[in-house]
């Protein structure tokens, strides 16, 4: 008697292999029966050992193996295991055939036992070879499967990360959009503040001019009133002379009255022009270029600036020189803009000589205080015709501009005046105005001697 080691080994391998397959492919309903089957095969072997008999058990082994082989081959879900199961068929077939032959014709079996044993042994090796090769294939496939699983996991992780990133990007985009809107809003506010500042700078310079304007209007109005009063008197007188029949006197009076009417008209127009100029100055933007008499414009703003300054500081006086080049006919400019630039330069020049006057006064001894001071504040406004361009020059004999601030003077909000006295926008606005006219604003200064600004405009 020999124990059924080979059937045990085969049944263990087959059952275990199926169990493994079932487990990995999650076919739960097969798991328990297969566990029992495994248990059964071990039990069967134990029974063989205990009863020391294989005559009955070998048939049970055959039944067991045939069942499990047929079962495995028939189940659609286990089709991938077929190649594996097939490896066991020759072995089972030959061992079953041997046992059946032995049962039917023992003498024939004994005569040919070698053939049977060889066939069974050969089929066993064949089975082993197939199993080995299949195991290798299986391992390779398993490796591949694990690799794919890893890849899948990686892809899933990437997909999750992608979603996270997309959320993050969306959040960032929203943040950026919000920031962009905030910035746009801030820019909008800055723009409106800028235009407000420009407007308030205009109004500030208008404020400085108000007294000058009032004075400038007051003078012509006085003439209008005075001449019309004179005319009233002259007309009365004329009537008296007419009654006397003194016609020569009447003619002389008529001539005077007519002349005075001209004066009234002239001074009325003068006041009118000043008011118009004032309105132009305060207007936010008309921005229309028109042929303008540069000399008249410079003269007008010089007078306005002078009276404006005099209204603020009544003790102050200055010698003003004008050198207008009469060959300049007219230049196409926005008069109120260039006027404002000229006004800024003149106001600055007045301020400079005012500073220098105070400085000169502070140096004088008490005995000198009644004498004419050595320093004569002087500003000059001139125009020059340079053919394809005109120059407007504003010169003062003030303290000059120190070299270390010279490159800052055109910057917005830069001012040397005490806080509250200057906006720091005058020169910067003037610069912008001149640039907008395609011209240049230049400065020439020497410390202790004075400063000359020039507006150069293309004709």
């Amino acid at each position, binding site marked *: 008697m020999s124990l059924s080691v080979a059937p045990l080994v085969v049944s263990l391998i087959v059952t275990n292999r199926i169990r493994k397959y079932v487990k990995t492919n999650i076919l739960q309903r097969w798991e328990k029966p297969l566990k029992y089957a495994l248990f059964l095969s071990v039990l069967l072997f134990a029974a063989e050992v205990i009863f020391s008999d294989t005559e009955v058990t070998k048939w049970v082994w055959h039944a067991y193996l045939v069942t499990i082989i047929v079962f495995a081959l028939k189940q659609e879900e286990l089709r991938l295991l077929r190649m594996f199961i097939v490896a066991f068929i020759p072995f089972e077939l030959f061992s079953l055939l041997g046992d059946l032959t032995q049962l039917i014709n023992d003498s024939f079996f004994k005569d040919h036992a070698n053939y049977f044993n060889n066939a069974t042994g050969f089929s066993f090796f064949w089975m082993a070879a197939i199993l080995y090769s299949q195991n290798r294939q299986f391992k390779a496939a398993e490796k591949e499967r694990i690799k794919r699983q890893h890849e899948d996991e990686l892809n899933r992780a990437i997909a999750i990360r992608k979603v996270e990133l997309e959320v993050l990007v969306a959040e960032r985009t929203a943040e950026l959009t919000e920031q962009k809107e905030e910035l746009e809003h801030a820019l909008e506010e800055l723009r409106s503040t800028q235009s407000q500042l420009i407007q308030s700078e205009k109004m500030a310079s208008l404020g400085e001019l108000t007294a000058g304007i009032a*004075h400038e209007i007051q003078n012509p109005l*006085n*003439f209008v009133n005075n001449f019309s009063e004179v005319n009233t008197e002259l007309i009365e007188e004329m009537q008296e002379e007419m009654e006397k029949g003194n016609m020569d006197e009447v003619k002389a009076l008529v001539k005077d009255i007519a002349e005075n009417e001209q004066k009234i008209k002239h001074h009325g127009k003068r006041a009118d022009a000043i008011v118009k100029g004032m309105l132009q100055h305060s207007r936010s933007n008309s921005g229309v270029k028109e042929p303008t008499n540069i000399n008249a414009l410079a003269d007008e703003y010089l007078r306005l600036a002078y009276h404006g300054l005099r209204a603020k500081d*009544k003790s102050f*006086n*200055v010698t003003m020189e004008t050198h207008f080049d009469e060959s300049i006919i007219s230049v196409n400019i926005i008069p109120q803009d260039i006027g404002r630039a000229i006004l800024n330069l003149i106001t600055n020049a007045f301020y400079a000589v005012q500073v220098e006057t105070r400085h000169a006064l502070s140096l004088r001894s008490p005995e000198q205080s009644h004498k*004419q001071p050595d320093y004569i504040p002087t500003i000059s406004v001139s125009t020059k015709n340079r053919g394809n361009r005109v120059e407007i020059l504003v010169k003062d004999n003030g303290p000059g501009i120190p070299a270390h601030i010279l490159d800052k003077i055109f910057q917005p909000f830069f001012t040397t005046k005490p806080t509250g006295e200057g906006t720091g926008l005058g020169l910067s606005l003037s610069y912008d105005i001149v640039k907008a006219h395609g011209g240049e604003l230049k400065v020439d200064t020497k410390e202790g001697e004075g400063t000359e600004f020039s507006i150069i405009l293309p004709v």
Partner: protein
Amino acid sequence: MKILVVDDERDIQTLFEQRFRKEIKEKSMEFAFAFSGEEALTYLNLHEHETVLILSDINMPGMSGLELLRQIKEKYLKPPPVVMIITAYGDAESFDKAKQLGADDFLTKPVDFNYLKEKFKQS
């Protein structure tokens, strides 16, 4: 009676000549005109002691009326001419300064000519 009128407005001459045409015709008053402080000093140098009354604006380019007043009162002592100061700004500061420098009278624009005539008659 000779009066020097100092003002940078040239039409002031026409105005005065017409306002005082009767006085001029009767030769009770004689007018001279200067259009700046400097011009006024030049005139006074040429016609010393002729002028008895000077009527000056304060607000003029170059030498102001107050500076002119100071120089007149310093240089032309005997006999001191009467100096009347006219200003467009009727402010206390100018008034005080003019008084301090020896102005004889202080008028505010627009000038009341009837009042001015009275003033001339008094001097």
